[in-house]
């Protein structure tokens, strides 16, 4: 079979899922249901971005909501005060979050292990306090209201279905770009650092540089998610970006699994859906939320899709390396 054909066939599962997701608004017309799906999208973006740090490079960042918040506030400021068009503002808020990522990564990566983790937590709290107290700039606890809906090439997005397609596009773009990136020397370097930092450094990997780059990249994606959130909800306040939000992201990674691109999306979907599906239980639904997490830790510590190589490829159509055993190699004692 031709290589291009086989590549196409291997991608059938992914394409089928994409097709279903694209057609979904035709069936799901209930605005509440769509809203829930949009939140699955937002949290998928956030979990995927945190996955770069926690899953791939093995840095434990527990303050990721800070970048989410920076993206949201930056986007609101860009569109409302500077009158920048939506797409540029979204990119700009990603870059702003990325810049903050650089500022925090540069000094904290000198710390190792738990100290760096605590620094990210501290950073999250500082950002939250700034958003809460800098009345002139962020309007403090009152938040920023009536953020305009996105306008893309003159087309105003104001229906739930419109937002759904926008976030679907963002998630797919994130997945594709991350997939390409992680399958390159950049991705190999990140994984190598996670597996053995000394060996990675000895193999010529500039570990510090890659860590900073990963931090900036993760912050960038989170900033994009923040920008979408701001324009979707049209009202943002500091409480949406409190450390609790970071912990939810961590729970999503723990539940869905990390170190691949499926786990974070699965985790985000499950943890967004649980409180909604069990809404009839009122406040008690949080027990189910916690119960699912505890259950996961008991039966499958690495999460639903653990670190191993999970992908949506149809393996049947993968290229096989031709194996030639010439000397009965597999029977040699050293190979067992």
């Amino acid at each position, binding site marked *: 079979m031709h290589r291009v054909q086989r590549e196409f066939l291997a991608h059938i599962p992914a394409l089928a899922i994409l097709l279903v997701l694209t057609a979904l608004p035709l069936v799901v017309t209930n605005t509440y249901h769509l809203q829930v799906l949009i939140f699955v999208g937002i949290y998928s973006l956030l979990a995927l971005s945190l996955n770069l740090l926690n899953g791939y490079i093995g840095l434990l960042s527990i303050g990721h909501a800070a970048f989410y918040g920076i993206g949201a506030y930056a986007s609101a400021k860009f569109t409302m005060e500077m009158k920048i068009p939506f797409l540029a503002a979204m990119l700009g808020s990603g870059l702003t979050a990325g810049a903050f990522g650089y500022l925090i990564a540069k000094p904290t990566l000198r710390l190792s292990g738990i100290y760096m983790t605590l620094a990210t937590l501290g950073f999250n709290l500082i950002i939250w306090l700034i958003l809460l107290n800098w009345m002139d700039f962020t309007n403090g606890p009152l938040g920023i209201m009536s953020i305009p809906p996105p306008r893309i090439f003159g087309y105003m997005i104001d229906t739930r279905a419109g937002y759904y397609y926008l976030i679907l596009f963002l998630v797919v773009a994130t997945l594709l*770009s991350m997939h*390409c*990136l992680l399958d*390159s*020397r*950049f991705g*190999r*370097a990140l*994984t*190598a650092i996670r*597996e*053995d930092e*000394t*060996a*990675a*450094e*000895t*193999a*010529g*990997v*500039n*570990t510090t540089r890659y860590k900073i*780059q990963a931090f900036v*990249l993760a912050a960038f994606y989170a900033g994009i998610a923040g920008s979408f959130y701001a324009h979707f909800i049209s009202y943002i306040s500091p409480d949406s970006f409190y450390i609790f939000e970071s912990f939810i992201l961590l729970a999503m990674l723990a539940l869905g699994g990390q*170190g691949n691109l499926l786990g974070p999306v699965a985790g985000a979907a499950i943890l967004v859906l649980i409180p909604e599906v069990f809404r009839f239980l009122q406040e008690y639904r949080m027990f189910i939320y916690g119960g699912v997490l505890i259950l996961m830790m008991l039966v499958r510590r690495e999460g639903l899709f653990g*670190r*191993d190589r999970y992908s949506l490829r149809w393996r049947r159509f993968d290229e096989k*390396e031709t*194996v*030639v*055993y*010439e*000397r009965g*190699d597999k029977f040699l*004692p*050293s*190979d*067992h």
Partner: protein
Amino acid sequence: MAPLLEITGVTRTFGGLFALSEVSFDIHPGEIVSLIGPNGAGKTTLFNCITGTLPPSSGSIRFKGTDIVGKKPHEITRKGIGRTFQHVRLFNRMTILKNVMVGADYNGSAGILSAMFRLPRVRREEAANRAHCLEILGLFGERLLPRLDQHADMLSYANRRRLEIARALAASPSLLLLDEPTAGMNPAETQGIVELIHQLRDQGQTILIIEHKMKVVMTVSDRIVVLDHGEKIAEGPPREIARDETVIEAYMGGRKYRA
């Protein structure tokens, strides 16, 4: 010919303990030099000093004529010194092919953005890197090649050692440091490594090797450097070292200690 590596008066202390004191020797291009000595003699410490993992307390190490003391390990690797570890250090949850590719990756130029959009340039670079790594894995016959997509932690002990050597070779180092490459291997496997070293020498590879198996040391070395208690006690071709009184004393326990 100018030496490839010049080690001059290298000392490394841990508190009051001299792990290395005033060690000096040169390695010339194309040479295979063995570093031997009893356990705790400072062999691995010297490796760590050369590769920047553990900077020397004093002394100078010059590689290709430039001082490399104080450089970071990855910079030293990029200058052309590759190494393996005494206790194998692989990227366990990465495939065998990827393990080796990491070694060759610093040659690449693809940045984040071009990788994100998988530009044709990146594809070409990846394909070239892959081909290069397959060639290196081919040095080990069919030991590693049929297992390209297996995770490294699935490998047997001997294969893990081979993979580590492959990763170091992938960077096309001018100087290869091997830290006990045959440790834990049976005679047949050891012979395989000896053959590999000969093959590498024929390609002009310079190697500094730490080894305990005397048979290996005597077969592969052009020259032997002996360390004991952090000091160089002898240096010379294998035949001389085998007869050297001080070396025998260090290894066997000297006659002077006997009553």
